[in-house]
């Protein structure tokens, strides 16, 4: 099937040519005009209705409804959601992504990653930090207060600084982060520092308030995962131009809503192939155990889709221990396994400890089904009850059913039986 090989080469070439630059932070409604209508709430993962949403997702929706002023309190928000007052849609349908619950509504500030190669943009909210945060279903006063500060204080400052900077080249930051021990999903300490190093002079230049500047630098510098959301926006900006390439078997999105895991395949348009999401295996914060854990969740698997996260574990032996994936010496095995299911490697994103091999790039559903190895994902673990937040970190596999279903659909489309 030469046409498949040509199509896959085109998809991977498009990915490798991707050139994401962080250019702005704007209200989500300015990026996604549809958010002005119908109390639209964008969430992580494939489409899902309120009744099937997990606890953290429902908790986050209640919180974001209060944040937007659509509900007087969390109970009111829950009642309205159950009564159908809100319109739920996936981030992925609007050029956006969001970690864990992935809440995006009209007032949420989103970072803009412009892919200079293809001209498209992708969006992701600002990372809130660890612990009790909305992306893990947190929704109390402290969570909402932080969201308001992000919207009213940090976002405008970042926007002005980014405009003055002319944009921050994200491909370079990722390349350097890989050489400094990041895999860009559960370890972003290097990339967060590199981003801050590039952006902080411009923040200082545009800020008119010493208090705001101090608070902003402290917030960004104190959050090792600040770059996660930036990398996700970059990932979405890289992957979207590789969508809808006829005859291609390359995966263009992997995502989870806490109930279902879904994938999209380039040659199969925007159809989601879903299966029940799996439970991460990992390590828990003191006082918590797997009995408290919610199944896997979030759009953050876009970083694995571009060859980072679990695919780049070999660059990040430290993260192998953090997510309970084994010894540091095991980290390279994950990357080697993922190379088996990918079409190519990325020559610009290399792993020094593995003799500078490129990160595995372009998940081919044929390879996944043939050798029976599914993508490895490094992930945070949310408490299964709404409002509590993160309780650990671990590793989870994409369900094989997504790939076998996609392969059957692809064969039908190609007229192969």
């Amino acid at each position, binding site marked *: *099937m*030469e046409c*498949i*090989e040509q199509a896959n080469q085109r998809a991977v070439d498009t990915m490798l040519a991707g050139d994401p630059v962080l250019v702005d932070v704007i209200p989500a409604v300015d990026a996604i005009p549809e958010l002005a209508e119908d109390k639209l709430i964008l969430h992580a993962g494939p489409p899902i209705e309120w009744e099937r949403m997990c606890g953290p997702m429902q908790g986050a929706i209640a919180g974001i409804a209060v944040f937007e002023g659509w509900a007087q309190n969390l109970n009111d928000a829950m009642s309205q959601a159950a009564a159908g007052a809100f319109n739920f849609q996936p981030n992925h349908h609007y050029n956006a992504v969001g970690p864990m619950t992935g809440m995006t509504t009209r007032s949420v500030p989103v970072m803009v990653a412009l892919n200079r190669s293809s001209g498209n943009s992708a969006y992701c909210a600002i990372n809130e930090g660890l612990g009790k945060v909305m992306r893990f279903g947190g929704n109390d006063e402290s969570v909402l207060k932080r969201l308001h500060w992000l919207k009213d204080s940090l976002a405008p400052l970042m926007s002005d600084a980014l405009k003055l900077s002319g944009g921050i080249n994200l491909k370079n930051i990722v390349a350097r982060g890989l050489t400094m021990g990041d895999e860009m999903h559960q370890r972003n300490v290097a990339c967060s520092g590199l981003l801050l190093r590039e952006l902080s002079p411009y923040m200082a230049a545009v800020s008119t308030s010493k208090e705001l500047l101090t608070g902003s630098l402290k917030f960004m510098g104190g959050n090792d995962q600040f770059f996660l959301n930036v990398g996700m926006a970059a990932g979405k900006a890289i992957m979207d131009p590789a969508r809808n390439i006829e005859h291609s*078997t390359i995966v263009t999105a992997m995502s989870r809503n806490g109930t279902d895991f879904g994938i999209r395949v380039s040659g199969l348009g925007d159809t989601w192939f879903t299966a029940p999401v799996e439970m991460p295996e990992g390590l828990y914060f003191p006082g918590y155990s797997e009995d408290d854990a919610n199944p896997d969740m979030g759009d953050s698997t876009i970083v694995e889709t571009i060859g980072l996260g679990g695919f780049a574990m070999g660059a990040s032996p430290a993260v192998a221990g953090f997510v309970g994936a084994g010894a540091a010496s095991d980290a390279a095995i994950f990357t080697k396994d993922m190379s088996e299911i990918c079409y190519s490697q990325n020559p610009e994103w290399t792993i020094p400890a593995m003799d500078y091999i490129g990160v595995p790039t372009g998940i*081919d559903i*044929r*390879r996944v*089904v*043939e*050798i*029976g190895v599914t993508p490895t994902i490094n992930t945070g673990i949310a408490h299964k009850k709404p409002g509590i937040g993160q309780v650990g970190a671990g590793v989870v596999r994409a369900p094989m059913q997504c790939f*076998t279903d996609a*392969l*059957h659909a*692809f*064969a039908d489309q*190609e007229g*192969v*039986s």
Partner: protein
Amino acid sequence: MEKSRLDSDAEMLFEQPLDILTIGLDGFADDLSKLEVAVTQLDWRPPADGDPVLADLLSKLGS
């Protein structure tokens, strides 16, 4: 009766140290290891975990 060439080759094979490659059940390699024979187990599974329908599709789709 004269020995066939195959028989002669087989005798020669077992007169020298063996390095054995096994494919399939781990037990093949385990038994040889217990006999202190050098053995390498190839990490191999049938395509699509042995599902004949998926394996057929994969072959037609060029995988």
